[in-house]
């Protein structure tokens, strides 16, 4: 029973990791994680601070490459293609595997420019009119269009925190990624803004494979269909969210989600 739960495999996974180890210099941050991420589910990574969930998330689009001392072992595939293979172009990978960060980080440019930047550098728009369509579609999908359609040329940093985060999601969507990674996207937001983001995640589900790291277990329970619990660099348990939250298999998972940790 336990093995079955922790190695829950998915048919036709979008991304899958096999025995992934991450080192920062001498220190091992991830100790051999194997996991499949499917297209139909929102996958949540939970776990206490420093458990490696964010580190692991960042290996999925090779954001760890920017850390000089980081070293990744094992295999991570996107549609069966190893993303750490020399033939994989990291710039393209990051367009296919988009990321939303903990702190809303719109570019200090206009709302329009924030969305248009990605499509422009990847040459996705055929012209100004095409770009306008992309911007509107992305903003609509990010649930922000009605709020900003009259001020597309105002600065993106002038929006409220929740709007900024939705702008960042729209910016990620604009390049039509296949996977969206979210690293604690609501930790800087108030509950209403958080609810809007969660609703947005719900709407985006199915169109993109979504992986969300969160400190907030209730949020993981609300938005995800698969939950992975990380602890001290291990993937302790991975399973159907409702199972994890009502009937975890592992003692460590249970202690964490019932608030008995530490």
């Amino acid at each position: 029973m336990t093995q079955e739960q922790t190695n829950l495999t998915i048919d036709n996974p979008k991304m899958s990791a096999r025995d992934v180890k991450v080192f920062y210099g001498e220190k091992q941050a991830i100790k051999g994680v194997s996991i499949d991420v499917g297209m139909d589910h929102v996958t949540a990574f939970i776990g206490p601070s420093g458990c490696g969930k964010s580190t692991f998330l960042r290996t999925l689009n090779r954001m760890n490459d920017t850390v000089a001392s980081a070293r990744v072992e094992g295999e991570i595939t996107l549609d069966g293609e190893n993303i750490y293979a020399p033939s994989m172009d990291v710039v393209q990978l990051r367009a296919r595997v988009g990321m939303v960060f903990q702190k809303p980080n719109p570019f200090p440019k206009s709302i329009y420019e924030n969305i248009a930047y990605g499509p422009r550098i990847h040459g996705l728009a055929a012209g100004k009119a095409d770009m306008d369509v992309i911007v509107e579609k992305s903003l609509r999908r990010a649930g922000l269009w009605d709020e900003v359609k009259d001020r597309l040329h105002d600065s993106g940093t002038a929006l409220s925190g929740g709007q900024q985060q939705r702008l960042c999601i729209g910016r990620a969507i604009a390049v039509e990624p296949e996977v969206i990674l979210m690293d604690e996207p609501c930790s800087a937001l108030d509950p209403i803004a958080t609810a809007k983001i969660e609703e947005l995640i719900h709407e985006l589900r199915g169109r993109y494979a979504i992986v969300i790291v969160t400190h907030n277990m209730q949020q993981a329970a609300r938005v995800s269909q698969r939950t992975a619990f990380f602890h001290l660099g291990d993937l302790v348990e991975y399973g159907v969210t409702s199972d994890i939250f009502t009937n975890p298999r592992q003692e460590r998972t249970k202690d964490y989600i019932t608030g008995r940790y530490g």
Partner: protein
Amino acid sequence: MSTRNPTDWKSEAMRKRIAGRYAAERRFKFAGLFAVVLSASFLAFLLVTMMGNGLRGFTRTEIALKVDFPASPLLLDPKAITDEALANANLPMVTGTVAKTALGDKADALLSPTAWINIRDAIKADPTILSRTATISVPASTGLDLAAKSKGSPEMEAEVARLKQQGVLSTGFNFGFLTASDGTDPTQVGIWGAFKGSLLTMLVTLILSFPVGVATALYLEEYARKNWWTDIIEVSINNLAAVPSIIFGLLGLSIFLNLAHLPRSAALVGGMTLALMTMPVIVIAGRNAIKSVPPSIRDAALGIGASPVQVVFQHVLPLALPGILTGTIIGMARALGETAPLLMIGMRAFIATPPGGITDPATVLPVQIFLWSDEVSKGFVEKTSAAIIVLLAFLLAMNGLAIYLRNKFETRW
């Protein structure tokens, strides 16, 4: 375990401690205020003396000279006024004669040796005056000028009193000071040559040091791996910024002049030498500005698939630009005020014509100030101060530009 007594917040000792705390705060505030007042008064003193002396340097004393052309020994055909005819007319002599008639025997000492130029210009402007008596404003001599403005020799003071009585003495703005170059007579010298020299030198400095400095800063911050090699480069750059400027002068002398045989006392070599000095400042300011760009912006750009070069040039650099520009302008301002290294590469020569290009012999404002302050003639004192005012205005304009650029490009995140 002994039980602690409840703290008596109202006790005598407590009250004293509070009073002591407030007293310390007051003392600190007073000391700070004193320091501010002291430095402000030094600055005020400097400005007041500069202005007191210097503003006079922008004015000159003029004498309204009545010239009765038909009665003068001038032989000119009003219908054929050419430069050649004017040159042959021996105007200096004529002016001397005319002045003697109008102002008395000592007229030679009253008028500036270049007074004839004003008369020539008046004739050129309107040849019809040759047939009548005209009043032409001509500059007074240095002695008279000094006596009129402040304190001159007793004879000149007497002359001033006499001329004032006649009502021919006046004070006007000395346009010549802003348009002329160095000269031997204080009434005729101007700042333009040195100003243009400074501009050209700064231009060379900016063109050389800005791209190199920014590129260095970008490379060190964005690309260079952290190892002992980059550590050494960093320490060297920091040390370079602290090296006395005279050393840079010597370096420029030995490399640019003795080795590369570039023209001596030219703005090009001056600019190159100053660029060496300014570059470390730009690198340090640039690195700090780049460091202060929040990593979240880099993450955001990388996260949607921007390449490192795109991240640097489309996000990091635009956001760091205000800081880099501020640093650059501060470095440039320091270079603008620099004298010592320029003396080493020969920019202390007497240059009577403004430089036409960066390879022409030139001088710069601070060197000009240095040279004039060395002059014996008393007329140069106020010229020195006036030149200092020009230099300060230049610096102020540069700093103003820095503030403007910073506010214009500053973005919040």
